[in-house]
């Protein structure tokens, strides 16, 4: 095919298949990490008292608590105190502050075109819980797409209270 030795070609194709199979398994491995309670990279939009807004950090699901760590700041929510969990998805703009500045700086409407390219879908996990005094708290976390439902399921399995989420209704076929 490439004018190489046939044995070399066979070994190259084997190695490329091996590399491709590993690459294709990477998202599955990431989901597996989320399921086993491995640290998961999330953004805490608000709600954790000791953590600043919009803090990027690691979420760890332990047996009795959900722990969020962002640098020195650490917050812990006992799983049993969670009243309800809501998972949703939203389309947002990625790129952060650099992305926003670039969009503003680009001439001839380039920023608008960039807005279309920088779209990304994220999962939003909203938790409500009560502290020791009975005070109501709400936490909003954003996670990579597809991981919100898994974290929710794991929290429920750990003893968190949550309403039953309605399954999306299948679209009705158009009558002819």
């Amino acid at each position, binding site marked *: 095919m490439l004018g190489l030795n046939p044995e070399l070609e066979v070994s190259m194709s084997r190695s490329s298949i091996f590399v491709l199979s590993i690459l294709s398994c990477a998202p599955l491995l990431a989901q597996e990490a989320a399921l086993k309670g491995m640290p998961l990279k999330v953004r805490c*939009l*608000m*709600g954790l008292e000791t953590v600043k807004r919009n803090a990027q950090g690691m979420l760890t699901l332990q047996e009795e608590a959900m722990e969020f760590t962002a640098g020195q700041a650490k917050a812990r929510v006992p799983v049993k105190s969670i009243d*309800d969990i*809501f998972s*949703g998805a*939203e*389309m*947002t*703009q990625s790129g952060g502050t650099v992305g*926003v500045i670039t*969009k503003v700086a680009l001439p001839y409407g380039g*920023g*608008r075109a960039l*807005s*279309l390219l920088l*779209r990304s879908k994220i999962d*939003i996990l*909203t938790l*409500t819980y*009560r*502290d020791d*005094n*009975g*005070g*109501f*708290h*709400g*936490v*909003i976390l954003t996670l990579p797409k597809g991981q919100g439902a898994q974290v929710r399921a794991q929290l429920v399995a750990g003893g968190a209270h949550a309403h039953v989420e309605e399954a999306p209704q299948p679209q009705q076929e158009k009558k002819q």
Partner: protein
Amino acid sequence: MIRRSWLVAWAVLLVSPGYAEEQSAPAKLSASAIQIEQVDAGDVLIPMEFRVAIYESLLDRVRQTSKFKQVFRSGDRQADGVQDLLTLKTKIEGFQEGSQTKREVTTVTGATKVDVSATVVARDGRVLLDQHLTGRVRFFGENLGATHDLAKRIAKLLNEKL
């Protein structure tokens, strides 16, 4: 003589609006603590993250004003013993979810809007404040930015009126 009477008349005219304002301005109430209740969605369909964001942003904003010595969360039992406690209730009256991408591409469409009524009630049930407010995000920013805008407006209102 005529000049003097003109001067007196002008002086009375200049002073009178300020005097009228002083007379009509309601006396500000002083309370040491406020309890912020959960956001009531009523019949309006609004995602939970928006309700939670309004509630948490309100707590932050009201604390930032330093108007009250204590700001309690909804359900906090520590608030039970406070005599001059005020309660802030927020009810959603309208919600329009926009799109961040639409806003950034078109600049005229895709705005997110939250309409609420904010009510402040004293411990004896007197309604001290009842006002309709709107939080918006029009150009740059995530949809949840509308909740920050709303919280900022409510906190400003509390600071001015109470």
